[in-house]
């Protein structure tokens, strides 16, 4: 096996294959980062819609909670298929990338909502009372009291969450979105040995996930909320 891999390697790492893999890498990064960012925006909205002292009127709270609980309990592949067929049957002409992106956003919103909620809940009760006593409205409480303190709790887990979606997007290869796993499958069907194809993308995934995760851990150690002693 090694002899064959060695023989193939120069051809595998030729100019066109590298461009192809580079494009695939960009696909993975765009899908996961864009999806995770937009998803966080929605997740944040869900989180403030779930908090009774922010925008959590009862019906909003029920809907937001339902969304979060349901979408975290459906596997990514099943969500992807639902979105894929929903777009297909609706007759809308959208690219496969858009379909995968919508799926990432839908599930990212649910996970981000939990992260943002943990941040909002890290604000101690007396501060809510103080904000109320000073006649702060919901918006002012959010922007002047909650966000300036909660970001320390919210930021570190977002890195792990992004890594989760970098990994989940490998499933988008199932519908033929141009990303790393799909590229590996194509190169494999072109006759390159499986070890080279899948080994290379495993390495690429590792190279983008590991630094992201480490950065999150560093930040977590650095931003750990100082306990009032």
């Amino acid at each position: 096996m090694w002899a064959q891999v060695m023989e193939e390697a120069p051809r595998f790492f030729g100019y066109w294959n590298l461009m192809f893999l580079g494009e695939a890498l960009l696909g993975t990064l765009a899908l996961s980062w864009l999806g995770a960012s937009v998803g966080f925006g929605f997740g944040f909205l869900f989180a403030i819609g779930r908090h009774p002292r922010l925008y959590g009127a009862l019906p909003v709270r029920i809907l937001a909670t339902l969304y979060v609980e349901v979408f975290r309990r459906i596997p990514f592949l099943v969500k992807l298929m639902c979105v894929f067929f929903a777009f297909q049957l609706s007759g809308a002409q959208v690219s496969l990338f858009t379909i995968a992106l919508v799926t990432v956003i839908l599930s990212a919103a649910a996970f981000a909502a939990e992260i943002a909620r943990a941040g909002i809940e890290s604000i101690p009760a007396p501060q809510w009372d103080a904000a109320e006593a000073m006649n702060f409205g919901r918006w002012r409480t959010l922007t002047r009291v909650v966000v300036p303190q909660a970001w320390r709790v919210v930021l570190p887990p977002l890195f792990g969450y992004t890594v989760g979606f970098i990994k989940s997007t490998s499933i988008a290869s199932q519908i033929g979105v141009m990303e790393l796993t799909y590229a590996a499958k194509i190169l494999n069907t072109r006759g390159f040995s499986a070890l080279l194809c899948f080994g290379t993308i495993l390495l690429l995934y590792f190279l983008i996930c590991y630094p992201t995760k480490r950065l999150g851990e560093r930040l977590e150690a650095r931003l750990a909320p100082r306990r009032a002693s």
Partner: protein
Amino acid sequence: MGEVVRRANADQGAAHAVLLGVSYTLIYSQVTGHIPYLLAGALLSLQLALISFLIGWAIGLVNASVLNFGPRAARLVVRGYVTFFINTPLLVQIFFIFFVLPDVGILLSPYAAVAIGMSLNAGAYLTEIQRAGFNSLRRAELDAATAMGFSRLQLVWYVILPHIVKALYPPLANQFIIQVLTTSIAAIFAVEELTGRAYNVNSLTFRALEVFSIVAVIYVGLTLVCSVALALLGRWLFRVKARII
């Protein structure tokens, strides 16, 4: 013709969905007959989740002990294993097992390849979880017990075990739920678990959206049942106060 189709759909109790301005008629009646078949697939998903969880748990237990007491070289190997498996996608790991191992003469069935991949993947996460659980044991706790004249056996039974069980139960239960959701990847390797059976029913009926929405609901129900059962079990066995949902 359109009129006839619309009548036929109306007869079958069709639900009308409007998506992006284009209407599509959801017909669940053609799929409901396949629900028992899908539910049997859910049992297979549960089985796969349980197998991979238990093997991963054993791997994690050994690894966590190695990280705490093992020699340096073994610790490095375990660290490498955990870091690698946590930072790469499970799907690609299984692709690797399924397509690369045959080159060195190891032929695996799809089910075995998925089970091995999921176990190794779960093993990495469960190593982290259990290491953190063991490390949450505080020196002062042990000192206090020793000061009160606990024997070694009593120390393990009355202090160490209850502490570790309480610290570990919630994250372990959580990992099991993740394991259940992860089994859907097996469908990509043509294992006939819940999602795999959804593909089958879809190719029989061509009612894709109906099939996959039903499957989504089954997954939500399945994990909810597991969550509630695990939370109640934890309360009853170990008095772990976990959130039920």
